[in-house]
């Protein structure tokens, strides 16, 4: 794109937006995170991650985010293959069905799951009506992972669908001509070519899973403290913005790491579907 005046003019609202809602808040997080109540410079808030309660919650958050990311890949990859193989036949309709829930508010959907999964909830009602064993996962880590997968799965599907759809059919046909069966061409052609999509999907699932506090509060009954919950509580309940910001900086380190990995593997931004 030509870098003329008109284009620069068009970018003004975006730049203003980015300054007001990204740059300034980030600077404020760093300011609060690196100062104490008297405004003196300190690393204490960042180093607070070494306290048992804090690193424990970070550890649990990392484990749960990892589990949900792995399950998301396992679910999304076959699905993306199926979606790309539809080719015209209802393809867009089916993709739409996967995007449709995202049009509804994330909080409402999670709240709905709370009601569905409850011990006395809708799912158990149906199960007991059919004389099947009931499920008791609400307020456990299982429910939290479930909530993460449900909410973030589309963010895995879409980049994969995007990348796999762009793979040149001629490459696949060549593999077939040379005697590769479906499985071989999947492992040797499709999989390597879809790495950018996988990586970008991982970031888009892993980062929100790692930082969430809503899912663990609503589906975990606030019994499991993730690092996101600790930070949220420092702001809303304990009025300790300094500690909250300090721990946010620690969390940002993990986010930056996963973004660096994305940048290395997905140089062309192919996986960026959204």
């Amino acid at each position, binding site marked *: 794109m030509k870098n003329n005046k008109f284009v620069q003019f068009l970018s003004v609202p975006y730049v203003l937006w980015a300054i007001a809602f990204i740059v300034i808040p980030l600077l404020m997080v760093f300011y609060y995170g690196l100062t104490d*109540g008297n405004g003196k410079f300190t690393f204490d808030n960042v180093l607070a991650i070494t306290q*048992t*309660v804090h690193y*424990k*919650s970070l550890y649990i958050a990392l484990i749960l985010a990892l589990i949900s990311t792995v399950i998301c890949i396992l679910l999304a990859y076959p699905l993306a293959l199926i979606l790309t193989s539809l080719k015209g036949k209802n393809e867009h309709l089916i993709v739409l069905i996967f995007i449709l829930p995202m049009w509804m508010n994330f*909080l409402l959907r999670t*709240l709905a799951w709370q009601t569905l999964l*409850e*011990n*006395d*909830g809708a799912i158990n009602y149906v199960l007991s009506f059919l004389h099947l064993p009931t499920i008791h996962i609400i*307020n456990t880590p299982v429910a939290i992972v479930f909530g993460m997968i449900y909410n973030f799965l589309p963010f895995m599907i879409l980049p994969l669908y995007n990348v796999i759809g762009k793979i040149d059919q001629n490459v696949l046909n060549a593999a077939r001509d040379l005697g590769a069966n479906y499985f071989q061409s999947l492992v040797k052609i499709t999989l390597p070519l879809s790495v950018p999509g996988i990586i970008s999907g991982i970031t888009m699932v892993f980062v929100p899973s790692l930082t969430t506090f*809503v899912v663990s*509060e*609503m589906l975990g*009954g*606030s*019994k499991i*403290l993730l690092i996101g*919950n*600790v930070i949220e*509580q420092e702001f*809303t*309940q*304990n*009025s*300790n*913005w300094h500690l909250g910001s300090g721990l946010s900086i620690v969390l940002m380190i993990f986010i930056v790491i996963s973004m660096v990995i994305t940048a290395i593997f997905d140089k062309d931004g192919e996986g960026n579907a959204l």
Partner: protein
Amino acid sequence: MKKKSLKIAVAVVTAACTVLPLFAGCSGTNSQKEVYVYNWGEYLDPDVLDEFTEETGIKVIYDEFETNEIMYPKVEAGAVAYDVICPSDYMIQKMIDNDLLQEINFDNVPNAKNIGDQYYESAKEFDPENKYAVPYCWGTVGILYNKTKVDEPIDSWSVLWDEKYKGEILMQNSVRDAFMVALKLQGHSMNSLDDAELEDAKNLLIEQKPLVQAYVVDQVRDKMIGNEAAIGVIYSGEAIYTQRENSDLEYVIPKEGTNVWIDCWVIPKNAPNKENAEAFINFICKPEIALKNFDFITYSTPNVAARELIEDEEIRNSSIAFPDLSNYQGLETFHYLGAEGDQKYAELWKQVKSE
């Protein structure tokens, strides 16, 4: 001290409200005909605001908060200058201590006399000369239980540690409320700053954790109505509402004592429209208006004249809405514990939650 609607939804709305008035403030004319009200979520009949505007011509700009702790930093920072706010007892004390409130001119609030003397007396715990606060709602914290799910009559906090009810217990997900239960059970003050007492309370709460189904704030109401749990710690104002919806529910003030709280209208120091704020408080203290709010939110009103107007005798003499506090022991009101005290509680609570 109340919270009804969805915690998170309110948080989102509050966040939006924080930003929007910043812009509104730029264009708004600084006329005398506005009042900025900052109140708990779902803590007032919305019709009342329209009636106020109709009667006085003063436009109400209405914001809601979810906890005292969310409200405080916003008022302290002064980004949005509110005229009238409705915090709880200990938070009013903190605001007075930190010089954030101004005295109310009671000549402009003649209806304040409708509030019963005993409530002003209780308010002296945090506002010693009754200069800053006009009581709006009050109540207790107690146990709500489902009669069909428990075997024996409940009268003690100790039931929350009964193995029999594993997975059937809902605890409050806030530091002071949770520690209040543990401290009261051990016969200590809920304003304790004694390290040994607090350590014991912490261990008690950790011991209780496996029995707890969930730590909740607002959802205790819906979960109890929906028979999801047998026992929950709840604010008395919610209890009346839940009983209307599910007649199996019973509310009790435990014998070890509990928290008696009062939420009051106060005027912050930086209020731009003090007289409008006083007009608003005066309007809220009208018996008919107080009755209307009581019907809507079911939190006990300290407005004696309004209570007399309640038609349903059962509600007027309800031991939940209007308990005779002289029958109970160990009743206390939360005090502001200072920044260090708050920090101490927060630290212990995190340890409970991360177990």
